[in-house]
């Protein structure tokens, strides 16, 4: 086996027959383990450079202002921005903070993204990364992929049945999605630490989908589905533990 093939094997990029054959070859165990160790080292130790908040905010502003302006105009605006100097920078940072905490359209953006995630997941038929109705399977799977541990306490709630989970991005942050089935409808329930960002409006409708939010158990909960608003609100209240009713 060539070094290229060995790397492809370790990356799971050989075809199925090739992967199986390589797994059965005892001569490959040691070199494959070496490569995996190196890969693990890079993944766990190398710097992952996250985008600075100032850049994120600048791009939001640019996006608002720029519909393909000529290059010269763009450069001018950018230098004007830079010329603003330290105080403008500090103001911008403050504005980002306030924006995240207060801006009325922030909740709306969260809703947009949640609906987009729900639609994308249904269209791609990959709405579930871990398929299980067992909360003891879904919870550790999610916890291993997030920097928090989402509560998964109800395999059944308000007539809905847990069918699995996935991780998706909401407002640029990876969050847990619990996937429930309520009759024939799929319900995505996004769960993230309530301290990070409050959940949006309690109930809303968008593009034909209903949304319901709640806060409970230290988490923000946001459910998206095409089931009716009443049932969705009830489900999210049960999950968040803000409904005293029977489960």
């Amino acid at each position, binding site marked *: 086996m060539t070094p*290229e093939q060995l790397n492809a094997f370790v990356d799971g990029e050989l075809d199925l027959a090739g992967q199986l054959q390589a797994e059965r070859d005892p001569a490959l165990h040691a070199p494959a383990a070496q490569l995996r160790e190196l890969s693990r*080292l890079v993944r766990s130790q190398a710097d992952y450079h996250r985008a600075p908040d100032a850049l994120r905010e600048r791009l939001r502003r640019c996006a608002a202002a720029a519909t393909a302006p000529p290059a010269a105009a763009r450069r001018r605006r950018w230098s004007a921005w830079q010329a603003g100097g330290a105080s403008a920078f500090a103001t911008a940072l403050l504005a980002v903070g306030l924006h995240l905490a207060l801006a009325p359209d922030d909740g709306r953006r969260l809703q947009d993204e949640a609906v987009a995630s729900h639609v994308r997941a249904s269209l791609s038929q990959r709405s579930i990364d871990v398929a299980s109705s067992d909360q003891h399977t879904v919870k550790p799977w999610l916890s291993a992929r997030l920097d928090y541990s989402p509560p998964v306490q109800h395999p059944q709630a308000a007539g809905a049945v847990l069918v699995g989970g996935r991780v998706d991005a909401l407002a640029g942050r990876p969050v847990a999605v619990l996937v429930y089935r309520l009759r024939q409808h799929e319900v995505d329930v996004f769960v993230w630490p309530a301290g990070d960002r409050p959940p949006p409006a309690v109930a809303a409708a968008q593009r034909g989908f209903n949304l319901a939010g709640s806060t409970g158990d230290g988490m923000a909960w946001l459910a998206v589905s095409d089931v009716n608003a009443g049932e969705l609100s009830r489900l999210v209240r049960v999950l968040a533990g803000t409904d005293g009713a029977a489960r």
Partner: protein
Amino acid sequence: MDDDETRRRFEHVALPHLDAAYNLARWLTRNDQDAQDVVQEACLRAMRYFASFRGDQARPWLLTIVRHTCYAWLRENRPAELVHFDDEAGPPEAAAPPGDEPHEHAVRRADRAQLNQAIAALPIDFREVLVLRELEDLPYRDIARIADIPLGTVMSRLSRARALLRVALQPEARPRTAVLRAVRRGEAP
């Protein structure tokens, strides 16, 4: 398309992948300020190219633009860094033999700073496939699309990137950074 729609689409499509965009730009330019400039420029381009976006695979799509912008930027500002290596050459001469136990310990002991330094010192062709694979966890076919190279070249570059990294992490090899002979793109080896 009106401004509001452009903004909304941009925020939906590009901003969730901003960290990936910045990480790639930062590893390619090896400088915070340059990476910010490049990502900003790339995102402005991305907004103009929305028509070419088919609504799927937003991350590879954005990273393709970021990578292209990085190379254009480096060509203009730091052309010396765009030294390419011959993909057809054999594996790096110092690839560790399999089962080399003392070497494995050395790799495990390598600390964060050494590792970051060793990756930063890789020639850009190898650095980019390694970053896309290990830090972005992208499949080979996405890496091929982003780096604009055939799948076979992804395989050979990744294999050589890891071999170079392994060598660079050996204590006795650390002072050496250039293991391969530099060959300008298009030149005979």
